[in-house]
């Protein structure tokens, strides 16, 4: 997270921090383990009132930022979510709200208003099942038929797919991408829950079997949504990275505290050089993760030409080194670290879902290499 916050940003962050500490302490998070949605409607509405879903929405559409840079403000909330492994569909609602605000039409106003108030949950249907699950690979067919668009294909994993009333679906029309807002109860939409590692996140496979939607529900241009989709992905990566760094931070802080308090052979774990050196490595990975996460967020906000590279570097680095960091925290805790009773797994789980969705570290390394290769003039 950013080191220097404005007083407004600090207040905003603290308000959410206090709210989450009060309404979603770890005991409450644990109780949601078998809850089908993974969050309470009232909790989400209260969070929306605090501004969780309005930061990427223009003022004209009823939203607004704290600092003038809504995406950076949102990273503060996402970071709090990671710090506390908090429940609620933060990423998908924000991505959809931002896109409806950017390029939505009159037919999307009600959904956008509902997202802002927290009464509606919508999600983004982006990734597809293997083997067509490479980052950015879209095969779901969107065919125009008179005044309808006909959708055929499968999306997975879709976060909050079971609780969303509306689905922002990304599909292909000829050579270009198309996005359309589909009611989750439209005929031909089938939502099947997936199992997941996270305690409160829920994911689904959603099948679109010749689903017909009026073209008025198209978000942006038919066949012309490629850049909007790319931007949605950048926003998703920024939110996911900020949250993942929060999870790393808590796991690290818990383990530092453990190292001071736990005695073996008559001395604190923190006094063993073998462990101290691992803590030094972890601290370095943690600070580097904060730094690249914040830098990528600022680059996306500014529309910088290297925003994609920075997002991918952040996703790859935080995914790879964050996983090593939290697993090393587990190792230093010993057996207690792999029990359900201990809290450490809540953060390991959250980091794991963030690492694995919207492109794995390996996929983002590949994207970095391809960008570097294609930028350099061939010899």
């Amino acid at each position, binding site marked *: 997270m950013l*080191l220097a916050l404005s007083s407004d940003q600090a207040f905003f962050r603290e308000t959410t921090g206090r709210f989450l500490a009060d309404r979603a302490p770890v005991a409450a998070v644990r109780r949601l383990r078998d809850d089908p949605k993974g969050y309470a409607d009232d909790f989400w509405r209260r969070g929306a009132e605090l501004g969780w879903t309005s930061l990427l929405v223009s003022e004209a559409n009823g939203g607004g930022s704290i600092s003038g840079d809504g995406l950076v403000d949102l990273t503060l909330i996402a970071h709090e979510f990671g710090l506390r492994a908090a429940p609620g569909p933060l990423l998908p609602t924000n991505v959809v709200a931002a896109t409806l605000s950017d390029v939505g039409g009159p037919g999307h106003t009600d959904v956008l208003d509902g997202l802002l108030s927290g009464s509606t949950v919508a999600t983004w249907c982006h990734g597809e099942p293997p083997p067509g699950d490479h980052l950015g690979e879209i095969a779901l067919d969107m065919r125009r038929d008179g005044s309808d668009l006909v959708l055929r294909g499968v999306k997975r994993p879709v976060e909050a797919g079971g609780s969303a009333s509306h689905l922002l679906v990304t599909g292909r029309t000829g050579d270009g991408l198309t996005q359309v807002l589909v009611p989750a109860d439209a005929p031909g939409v089938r939502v099947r829950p997936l199992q997941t590692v996270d305690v409160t996140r829920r994911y689904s496979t959603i099948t679109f079997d010749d689903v017909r939607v009026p073209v008025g529900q198209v978000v942006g241009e038919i066949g012309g949504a490629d850049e909007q989709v790319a931007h949605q992905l950048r926003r998703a990566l920024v939110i996911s990275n900020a949250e993942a760094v929060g999870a790393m931070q808590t796991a690290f802080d818990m383990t530092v505290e453990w190292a001071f308090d736990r005695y073996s052979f008559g001395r604190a774990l923190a006094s063993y050089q073998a462990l101290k050196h691992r803590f030094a490595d972890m601290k370095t990975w943690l600070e580097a993760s904060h730094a690249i996460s914040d830098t990528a967020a600022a680059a996306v906000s500014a529309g910088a030409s290297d925003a994609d590279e920075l997002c991918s*570097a952040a996703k790859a680095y935080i995914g790879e080194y964050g996983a090593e960091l939290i697993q090393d925290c587990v190792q230093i805790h010993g057996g207690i670290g792999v029990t359900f009773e201990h809290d450490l797994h809540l953060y390991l789980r959250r980091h794991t879902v963030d690492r694995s969705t919207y492109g794995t570290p390996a996929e983002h390394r590949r994207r*970095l290499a391809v960008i570097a290769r294609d930028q350099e003039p061939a010899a």
Partner: protein
Amino acid sequence: MSTADRVSTDGVEDVETFRQRARTWIRSNLRQVEPATLVGVLRNERSDEEELEAVSHERALQRAFYDNGLAGVCVPPEYGGLGLTPAHQRALREELAGYDYPSRLQAPTFSPCLSVLLEFGTEEQKLRHVPAILKGEEIWMQFLSEPSGGSDVAGALTTAVRDGDEWVLNGSKVWTTGAWWSDWGLCLARTNWDVPKHRGLTVFMLPIRQKGVEVHRIEMLNGSKEFCQEFLTDVRIPDGDRIGDVDDGWTVGTRWMVHERMLHSSPYVTIPDRTPNNGVGAWLTLAAARDSGHLDDPHVLDLVGEARMLDLVREPLQHRIGEAIASGAVSDQSAAIIRLFVGTTQARITTLTFEASGAAAAAWDEGDGALAGCGDDFLMRQVACIGGGTTEMARNVVSERVLGMPRERTLDRDVPFRDVPRSPSS
């Protein structure tokens, strides 16, 4: 806009005006250089004549910076600097990206040597040396490590004995880069053997080219002869060239090493943005991958992607830690985080490039392009984790000084230095 960006009313040049002035001068006076000017790990590619030529070119370059009001951005004006802010310095680094700059003068001359002089030097010492450094007239080296021990710096055996208004130095210092073409040494010496090791040290400055200082060039495993060892025999130094109090050299030494680790976040250092560290970076991994003809292989792309990832994380980390230190949010001991990151990631990128080189890492010829020499770089890989303080020492600093974990137990802390064991037989 931040405060520093606004035009100030007290006659101080604001950041944007400074940036424009720097840009204009840089673009019409400096040549653009490929980021690949420095390739690999301390490769032995220049003859001595070429190296000396490069040194005089950089001295002239530094002089040109000075003459055009772009040297010593954060150095107080009374010592020849501009007295501006780290924000100005950052603007200069940004504007210099892709241009020629005096790389050999940055470390250790500007940091840690100039930093130590500004912090501990007397008024007379600062007036004598700081402007000369800013004009490129004095290149400094650190006479710090000794053959008897690298990490245990405070265990220095080089001895200074007082003789009237002078000091007489005897001993040996090692791992000075380019001491054979440098002018001054910042030297840590033992002045008292009868007190615990940290309390019997004193810091001096001395001209390298003088009677009693013998500079030997060390041949590294790849043939490079840039590192030197110095033998000091009855070298006489006036007391006026002492820095800090007698026997209080560790106060200076502690800050000295902080400045050394601060290199990339120091306000006195001018390294252009996007300068590859030590000639190692993803650009070399990419070049090796391209010249191997395997750039489209998935596993080779993964090597390039990982190197690129590590490259892209470095600058944000340097800025984050640098700003946190500057604002006082964290102690300057946090500079060890940057040192640890840079060391370990440079070593990793060297490995990635080596991997991308295939069999040419073992045997190559001039026709192999970027593949040539990557095997030697791999042999030299650990230089990134040794030079400038080992990564083990950085890990001690991060765990003990940043995270507050208990210090390592030592056997030399509360005994007179002459009684400290120095070998199995002692």
